[in-house]
Each structure stands twice: as C-alpha cells, then as structure tokens.
C-alpha cells in the first residue's frame, strides 16, 4: 500500500512534510475511490445517443480530494490539457471584495492532489493559463506575464509591451500553436496584442477594429496556416484580425435575427468553430468560416458559462458541449441534444478526444464512444469483436457456446478483425477490469489464428500498464489512449520528471525497455539536477547520494549537474560533483567558469590533453599577474614545458623571463647562445 511504499515523488527517501493523519486519510480515500467493477449487463447504461450514429458517455475519473474553501466560480481557473494540472487563484481582484486580503495561488494535480500553494504578492491577475511545457502563465493587469513552474517555483517574467501597460489588460487568453504556447491580450483600448510563442517572445500588435467602442462580446484565437488570428464578435458582426488587416466575416448559413454572439469556441485542433448567439442558437462550422457543419437551437437565451468542442480525431461526429450554471448540454448534428444536470460549479477542459469536467467533488470525462467500443458493446451487436468477447466469456464458463461463437466468426473470416477490435477497444477503456476482459478475449482469439503478429497486443498491454500507472490517484494524469499516443512516451516521461515522480518514470523506462541514454539516464540526470537544489542537505551528502544513484550510468553528464549546482550558488558541491565526471574536457571549462583555475590546471594536466592544458594556461595568463603565473607554472612541469614550447615560437622574451625567474642559468645561457646564432644569420 501507499503508506508503506516510499512516496513516489521522493526518490531520495526524504520524508514528506505531512503528518501521518493526512496520509492515512488519503489512503483510505483512495481505497474508497475504486468504484465497484461494472456489471456487464448495464455496461452501456451511461451511453447517450446523439442522433443515429453516435454515442456519448461520461465517466468519473477521480473524486476530487481538494478542500476547496470557495466555489470554483470565485476563482480564476486554468487547467492544462492532456490531463495536466489545475491552477486556481482564489479571491481575485473583485470589486466587492476587500483588496487587503492577499489571494492564494494553488496548483493541484488533475486528481486534486495539492502540488503548490503560494501567496500572491504581485499585481492583479486577469487570466491564468498553462503553456505546452506545463508552466503556469499568469497575465497581470499591467501586461506583465509571470511564469511559474508546476511546483509554484517562479521561473521568469516578461512584459507584453508598453501599449498594454498603459491601457491595462481587459482580457487575456493562453493558446497553443505548433510553435509552443501563445498569449493574446485585449487591452483597455480594445486593441489586441499577441505573441505566438512565449518561449521566443515576439509581440505583435493587431490592427484596429474600425468603430469598436466597447469590448467585444466574445473573442477567440484561431490558428491557421501556422499564423495566429483573432476572431471577435461585436454585436451582430464578426471580425477576423490578422497581422495586416481587419476583415468582417459572416458565417455561411447563419440563421437570421442574431443581434449578438454570446460565446464562441474553437476546437482543440483549430479546425472547427462554434458560435452561440443571443437567440439560443448554435452555429457549428469550419474555423475558416467557409462551411457550415450543422446548427442547433437550444432555446436558452442565457449566456453559457463555457462552450467547448467535444470531438475525436478522425471521427465524423461533431459535437459541442455547452455549460450553464446547472446544466450541461451536448449538441451536434441531431435534432435532440444530450442533457446532463450539474450539481455543482463545474469547469470544462477541452481535450484532444473529449472534454474533462471537474467540480468540487468529482472529475469526469465526457467523450464520444470510440468505434471499436461501440461495435463491441452496442446492444445486440453482431460485430466480430462482440462475438469474440462473448465466446471468451462462454469459454470461461466452460460452455460449448464458445465454440459456436468462434465458428461463427471464423466462417465469416473475421477473426483477425475481431482480435484487433478487442485490442483497440481495450485501449479506450478506463477501467482495468474491462481492459483485462477485452485483452483476454483478444488473447483467446489469437490462439485460433496462425499468423497474428503479436506486437500490437503486446504493445497495447504495455501502453495500458503505463496509462493505468499514470492515471493512478497519486499521480493524477488522466490520459486517454489517443492523448497518450499524441503526446508520445518521451513527453509523458518529461511530465513525470516535471512532477518529480522520478521512480515512476524510471520504472516506466525499465518496463518499456527504453534505451538507457534516452530513458533512465536522462531521468536520473534530472533527478540529480533537482537534488542539488535541496539547500538543506550538506554538500557531501548530496554528492554522495547522487553518485550512489547515478554511478557510471551511461549518458549522464556530471558536468551538467555540476553546472546546475553552480547555478544554485553551490560551488563546493559543483566541484565535488565534477570529481565524478570522467571526461576532463567537461570538467575544465566549468572549473574555469567557477574561477578555480588552479584546480582546472591540475585537472587538465591529469587528463593528458595538452589542448586543455593550453586553454587553462592562456586563461591563467590573463587572470594572474606575471609573477603568480610563472609561480603556478613552476609547480606544473608539464604545463611549463608546454608553455616553453609555445614561447619558443611566439614569445622569445617571455621565455627569457621564465628562465630568469627559475634561476635556470644553464637554459638561460643556451638561450643567449641560440639567440646569437640566430642573429648571425640575418
């Protein structure tokens, strides 16, 4: 159990600073969290049909364990996609609240585990958002963007320009492009400024919207052809802003009578756009505004709190999830909509293949049921996968029906397809029990196939194991299979490292047998870089701990870790770490940087690399005065002879001085003889 095992984010065995009580409670909760295994017969009970062809289902990811003192609606909320963390800034600067109370910025994992909590000491924040690297961007009213790490560590800040500073920020959005993460800002002068990549900040001031007197009723960023645009709605008009111009646009097939747009939503991939009008009418189309996909009239005139797209990659179904205070509606190309009741304040997070919905008590996932699952589980389905699953169940019951079903599939020659369906469906299941029974069916079907390549099955088993591990309550990254594939294992490992879950990351690497240099060593190096920042541990202990863990793991650069230690101001530790660095070529430059030139010199000499010695020599020559420099040389015969060789060709006078300093009369004599012979030749 979790109580006994060392905490996952604690590779060094450091005790976490929480009392036994909290731990026990968490433990009990996590035990209670396991919902009972779904009964087979009501498996499709949470499936809701939308139109004729699609089903949508909503299932619980976690029951949230955060002790929110306030309602979500009182907070600025930002949740990162791909099962990322949730940031809450309580008590933002609302006019009715007293400004004297400093707000608290809290960061939780997707399962509600607290990651960080800090008192907000800077200016008023307008908007929060997560970058692609899972850094929290906090846009202040004065246009300064503060960047925090996942654990609430301040990273850096940048400003969005003077114009923004003067006119204050009205509204801001963080968006993701293929370059990284961007920030778009609406200023008090109703102008837009945006930067498509905060990593490489280039501010772009968008052209003015003619006749714009008040803030647009809604706006969003679009990303087309690798360029970021802004779409805004003013009254009944829509404007598209790009770098050069502002153009009015009209969505094709928009129902008449619209006097204002209340909400707009762009899909995860920037391909689709949905508009909500004041008549309760929803227009859905492509983001280029060239084509209408469908429309829906919900007859609710109240402005929705949130509207997000809920679609799966490569699916034909389009649906938008609209949330009001107490109502959640899934609308698509169908006359009816799916309606859910919201018991509490909820917040929607668009994902690649669905929508995450979290509230004070739960965290749910709403998505379109994937084809493979639909085929297998749909009531009275005769798809090969469904038959195979049934056959396997009968087989376990030792019933002869198993044979009947199997023959049926085989007669149609669909066994391969059946196995593939079961494997695929297993990937989309959230419950391990369900995954298991599907995989069992696949493996059962595989027995009757001659040449079924096993790698898809094996890989799915591995992937599911990894996914189940990261979906665990303690880790709290509720990735779906498609998200995981999109994210890639490398990025997932990076995210685990970012959450300081080093042991889990290493276990995954070892389990997936990733090459050491990419996998384990990289993670260990990250761990070491984190370890050197622990200021409360003595230099010796840190160095020893790091060396014990890392040993001679290939691909680990001790000099990188030492550089990090030096960056934290721990020079002594850096020197200790450098001792472990086998490549002198890496040691010496850092030692020089740390102004340990003499140590660098002896290291260079030990390495036997004369180029390195020379580098240090020239450095020393500039750093020390001549006398000290010569004295240093005197103690290092190798460096001395090297320098003499150099002087012989380049600086004869220095050579003489060197001999003089050493009282080397013999050489001095030879020097003069040589000089006289050389002079004769002229």
């Amino acid at each position, binding site marked *: 159990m979790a109580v006994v095992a060392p905490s996952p984010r604690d590779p060094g065995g450091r005790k976490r600073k929480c009392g036994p009580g909290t731990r026990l409670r968490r433990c009990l909760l996590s035990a209670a969290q396991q919902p009972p295994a779904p009964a087979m017969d009501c498996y499709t009970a949470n499936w809701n049909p939308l139109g004729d062809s699609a089903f949508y289902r909503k299932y619980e990811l976690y029951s949230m364990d955060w002790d929110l003192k306030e309602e979500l609606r009182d907070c600025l909320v930002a949740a990162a996609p791909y099962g990322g963390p949730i940031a809450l800034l309580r008590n933002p600067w609302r006019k009715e609240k007293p400004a004297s109370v400093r707000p608290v910025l809290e960061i939780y994992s997707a399962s509600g585990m607290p990651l960080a909590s800090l008192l907000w000491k800077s200016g008023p924040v307008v908007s929060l958002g997560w970058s692609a690297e899972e850094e929290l961007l906090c846009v202040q009213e004065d246009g300064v963007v503060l960047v925090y790490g996942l654990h609430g560590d301040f990273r850096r800040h940048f400003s969005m320009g003077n114009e923004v500073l003067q006119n204050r920020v009205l509204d801001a959005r963080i968006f993701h492009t293929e370059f990284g993460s961007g920030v778009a800002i609406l200023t008090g002068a109703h102008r837009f400024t945006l930067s498509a990549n905060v990593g490489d900040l280039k501010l772009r001031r968008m052209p003015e919207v003619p006749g714009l007197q008040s803030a647009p009723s809604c706006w969003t960023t679009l990303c087309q052809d690798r360029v970021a645009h802004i779409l805004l709605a003013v009254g009944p008009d829509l404007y598209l802003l790009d770098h050069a111009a502002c153009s009015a646009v009209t969505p094709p097939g928009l129902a008449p009578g619209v006097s204002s747009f209340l909400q707009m939503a762009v899909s995860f991939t920037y391909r689709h756009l949905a508009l909500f009008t004041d008549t309760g009418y929803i227009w859905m189309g492509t983001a280029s505004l060239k084509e209408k996909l469908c429309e829906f009239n919900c007859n609710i005139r109240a402005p929705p709190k949130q509207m997000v797209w809920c679609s799966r990659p490569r699916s034909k179904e389009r649906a938008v999830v609209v949330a009001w205070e107490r109502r959640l509606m899934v609308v698509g190309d169908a006359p009816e909509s799916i309606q859910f009741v919201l018991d509490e304040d909820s917040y929607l997070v668009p994902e690649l293949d669905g929508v995450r919905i979290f509230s004070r008590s739960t965290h749910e996932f709403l998505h379109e049921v994937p084809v493979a699952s639909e085929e297998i589980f749909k009531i009275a389905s005769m798809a090969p996968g469904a038959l195979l699953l049934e056959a396997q169940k009968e087989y376990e019951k030792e019933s002869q029906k198993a044979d009947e079903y199997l023959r049926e599939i085989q007669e149609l020659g669909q066994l391969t397809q059946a196995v593939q369906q079961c494997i695929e469906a297993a990937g989309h299941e959230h419950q391990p029990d369900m995954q298991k029974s599907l995989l069992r069916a696949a493996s059962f079907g595989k027995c009757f196939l001659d040449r079924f390549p096993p790698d898809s099955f094996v890989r799915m088993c591995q992937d599911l194991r990894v996914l189940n591990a990261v979906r665990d309550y303690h880790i709290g990254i509720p990735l779906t299979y498609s998200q995981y594939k999109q994210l890639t294992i490398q990025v997932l490992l990076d995210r685990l490292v970012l959450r300081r879950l080093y042991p889990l990351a290493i276990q995954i690497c070892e389990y997936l047998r990733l090459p050491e240099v990419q996998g384990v060593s990289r993670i260990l190096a990250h761990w070491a870089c984190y370890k050197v920042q622990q200021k409360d541990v003595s230099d010796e202990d840190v160095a020893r701990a790091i060396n014990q863990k890392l040993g001679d793991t290939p691909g680990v650069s001790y000099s990188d870790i030492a550089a990090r230690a030096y960056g934290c101001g721990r020079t002594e530790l850096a020197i200790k770490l450098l001792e472990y660095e086998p490549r002198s070529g890496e040691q010496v430059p850092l030692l020089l940087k740390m102004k340990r030139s003499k140590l660098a010199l002896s290291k260079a000499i030990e390495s*036997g690399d004369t180029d390195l010695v020379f580098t240090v020599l020239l450095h020393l020559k500039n750093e020390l005065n001549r006398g000290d420099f010569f004295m240093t040389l005197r103690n290092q015969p190798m460096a001395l002879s090297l320098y003499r060789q150099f002087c012989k060709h380049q600086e004869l006078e220095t050579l003489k001085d060197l001999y003089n300093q050493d009282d080397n009369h013999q050489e001095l004599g030879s020097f003069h*003889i040589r000089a006289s012979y050389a002079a004769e030749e002229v």
Partner: protein
Amino acid sequence: MAFPHRPDAPELPDFSMLKRLARDQLIYLLEQLPGKKDLFIEADLMSPLDRIANVSILKQHEVDKLYKVENKPAVSSSEQLCFLVRPRIKNMRYIANLVNADKLAGRTRKYKVIFSPQKFYACEMVLEEEGIYGDVSCDEWAFSLLPLDVDLLSMELPEFFRDYFLEGDQRWINTVAQALHLLSTLYGPFPNCYGIGRCAKMSHELWRKLEEEEDGEAKGRRPEIGHIFLLDRDMDFVTALCSQVVYEGLVDDTFRIKCGSVDFGPEVTSSDKSLKVLLNAEDKVFNEIRNEHFSNVFGFLSQKARNLQTQYDRRRGMDIKQMKNFVSQELKGLKQEHRLLSLHIGACESIMKKKTKQDFQELIKTEHALLEGFNIRESTSYIEEHIDRQVSPIESLRLMCLLSITENGLIPKDYRSLKTQYLQSYGPEHLLTFSNLRRAGLLTEQAPGDTLTAVESKVSKLVTDKAAGKITDAFSSLAKRSNFRAISKKLNLIPRVDGEYDLKVPRDMAYVFSGAYVPLSCRVIEQVLERRSWQGLDEVVRLLNCSELAFSGMTKEEKASSESLRLILVVFLGGCTFSEISALRFLGREKGYRFIFLTTAVTNSARLLEAMSEVKA
C-alpha cells in the same frame, strides 16, 4: 635461405583498411571546398600522402596545383587555397603571412587549413593572434597510422622523439592514444596489455579513457590481436645507437629509408639516374634478405642470381609452345626479379664500398667492446681519434653517447676532454647539442652522488601535492642512470661466445648485431611475453628506472582465439630501428608469434642524434 614462418604462424590482419580510411577522409575534406583549389603540402607530409593518395586522385578532386609549404612567398593564383600541414606554429605563421599579404593586396580568397593528424589549440591561438582566425576554416585529417608494410605501421611523427624526450612536451600522447583507439575499434580489443615507460603509461591511460567513453560499440568484438606492448624509446637508447648490420637496417643507415621507400643514387642503379624504390614485403628479393645479417646477403644474392640464370636458361630446350608459355607467364616475373636483384646487388656493393672506407670493422669492434664493457680506455682513445679525424660529427657523437650510456655516464675528466675535443673539431655551435644530450640522458657526466639528491629534495620541498612525485621523476630522468651494465648481466644481453657465432643459422636475437648483443628492448618484450606479466622482472624494471611505470593489464577474454593470442602489437614510442624489427621477427619465427610494429617513426642512430642536435645540417 630466408627463414620461412612456422606453418602455425597466425595471419596478419589487413592493414590496408587504414589507408582506405585515410584516403576517404582526405577526399571528404577536399570536397568540403568545392571547386578548383591549390594544395599546399608540408614537406614532411609529402611522402606519407604519396602512399595514401597519388596526384591523380588529388586531381580528381579538383586540386589544381601542388605547392610545398616552405618559407617562400607563394605564387598561386587560385581562388581557393588549401593547406595540408602538421600542427606547428611555424606553419601557422607561414599561412598567416600569406593571408595577410593577400589582405594587404586587397585580395579575398578562400583558405582552408587541414591539420594532420590533429589540430592543436596553440595553432588556433596563433591564427587568432595573427588576426586571421576568421578568414580560414580549420579541419582535422586524423591520419595517424600509415601502413608501411604488412607488419609495420608508422605514425610518421619523427618530431615525437624530440618533443617528448627532450622538451617534455606531451601533446603527441593524445595522438598516440587516438591511434590505439582506432586500432582497437577496427581490429577488436586487445585482451592483454603490457607497457613500460612514462609515455607508454600515459598513452595507455588516455587510450583506456577513450575506450571507456565510447564503450558499448566495441563490446562483443572478437579480438584479432592478442597482445599489445607499449615501450618508451628512452628505456633503451643503446640498441638505437648501435650500428646496424642487418640488411634493411644497413640500407637505412646508408641510404635512409624514407616512408618505406629509398632513393638509390646512380652508384647503385649503375645508370645516371637515381631511382626511388619501395622497400616492403612485395619486393620478393628484398623480403628474403631484409632480416639477414649483411655478411650473408652477398652469398644469397649470388645464389639467387645463379637460380635466375638457370631459369632463363631453361628456355634453351623449349619448343615453340613452351616458349610462348614462358614468355607470357614467367618472363615478366623473372625480368622483375632480375631488376630487383641487380638493384640490391648494386646497393650491397655501394654499402661495402662506403663501409670499407670508414674502417667499419674497427668501428664495430669498438662498439662491441663498449657493449661488453672491456678495454674502455682503448675505446675512448678510438673515439678521440674518430673525433680528431673528423670522420662525421653525428658518428662521433653516437660513439660518445654509447660510451656514456654503457658506462653509466662519463667520468668528469673524460667528459670534459671529449667535449672540448669535439667542439674544437666540429665547431662550437655543437655546445647546445651537448646540453640537449645531457638533458635527454644520452650523454651525461658522472655526478658525485649527492648533487642529484640535493636537487630532488629541494624540489620536493617546493611542491607538496601529487605533482611532487612526478617532478622528482622528471628530475631523475634528467640525470638518469642507465645501469646498462647491470641490466645487461641480468638479462644476459651479451651472449657467451664459444667459438664463432654462426650468422647463417642464428640462435638468438643477437644475430642482428653480429652475435654480440641482444637488443635490450626486444629482450624485455621476450621476457614479458614469456611470463605474461612483469612478475620476476622487478629488478630489471628498477634498473630501467621505471619502477612505477611498468604495467600489465589482462581482461578475461575467453573469446580470444589461440591464433589471435599469438599476434603481438609492439608500440615503440619515440621510434624503433630496423634491427629491432628484424630481431623481433626472428623471435616470432622461433616462438610461433607474429609481431606487428607500431612506431611513431622508424629511426636510427643518425636520426636520433640529429633530433637532439641544434646545428642545422
């Protein structure tokens, strides 16, 4: 007559791969500068380059004209200049002058400097100081191993000897380590490793480090060469200083073999042209006589000539068909053999003529007396006479050095008198040479015992850290005692002669010096290989002043085949002589080993001493 290898002798690895590798790399570097370009080649690199890529290959890759790097302004008109140089400061200044001259003339050209075998930081520094670092592009041509023969690899770095053993400059050690690394990646790891000497130890350590950094790839390779033996030249100067009497060594001493080929002058070719001849195993006649004592060579050659004659004579009784066969198949080979035979006979004659003029017998006798350590006074007076007759400055110096080393340094009286006579005879400019020789430990004065230790203790007081040991070592090497006499006794280097030593059927390696002396270096290698370690040789190691510098390493390598375990790579750091090569080839034949030689350069007594000399010839 030439001893065949034992039938179970292992096959040598194919070293032509190294040539191909070097050629491809050079071509790649040349292609980096597309278009027509003029190539400036350093004189020292010309012969090695010739063995790798001839002019037509260079032309194929758009090399227009070839120039020699010398201290003259270049007249090249090409828009692109490529320099192929050793990493020497002198060369950098040459290039800098050229580039700066162009700059003054307002001319812009493309310059590329290719350093071989590697680039040194000091060179780049000079380029920077001269203000042309941005104008030239630098590259490395990692050409460090030239296969001169099937069993001989040379790094062609004659300056290694002076740089390391005289100036104490260690920059070439890295190059050696790189070369060893290359060998082990190409021919598998070496399961057994031995070495003696400071440089050997450092090279070995550096090489190991390189292997560690890059392990993983080399793992699992079957070793092709079972042993590697690293050896510093300063461990055995005696052998290198002796006159060579094996044919190949003698040719080297007389005509100077340069990069595996020799220029035979008109007196050898018996025509008015001189001829450049490649001397290696492909020359069938040479291959049979190269390792022979010179006294046997004449007899062998005349026998060979007679055989050739009978071969020619066979055609007398042939019918047309046989004749056709003979002409088409054998004649060419016979003609070739004929040509080589006459060449080597010519060389022998020329050598004989020169040696008789120099009173060679007397010289050899003196050398043997020195080696055996009797009649020292007589030898000393012979040397004095040698100096006074002004036979040759290098030869005289050689004898003095030999005397000094075998006698553990000259007694001060002798030292002073010999030095004075030498300087008076050959000129005072040799004064600096004497100081160099003393520094290298080649020609020393017997010091009253306490002075050295005084210096040592002074130094150790000065320095407290790890380097202290190194410094005292360095100092002791300055005035190193050679202990030759004791070593000689210990290792039985002077064979007991009962009756005449039969040079035709040699018994031991001493034949390379007419049976008077077993080369010390070769004896050490023999002993270590016999024991598979330095165990039991502690006394010898101590006498060689290498107490901490002898090492052996063994990896448990089950994969090494018995065949590979009989292949031994001997690395001579600072050069080796042909006599040593012959001696080890002989040892190999006796014991069923095959030796492969890797040397920084092939050397002989003259080259050794010229390297120490401050007087430009």
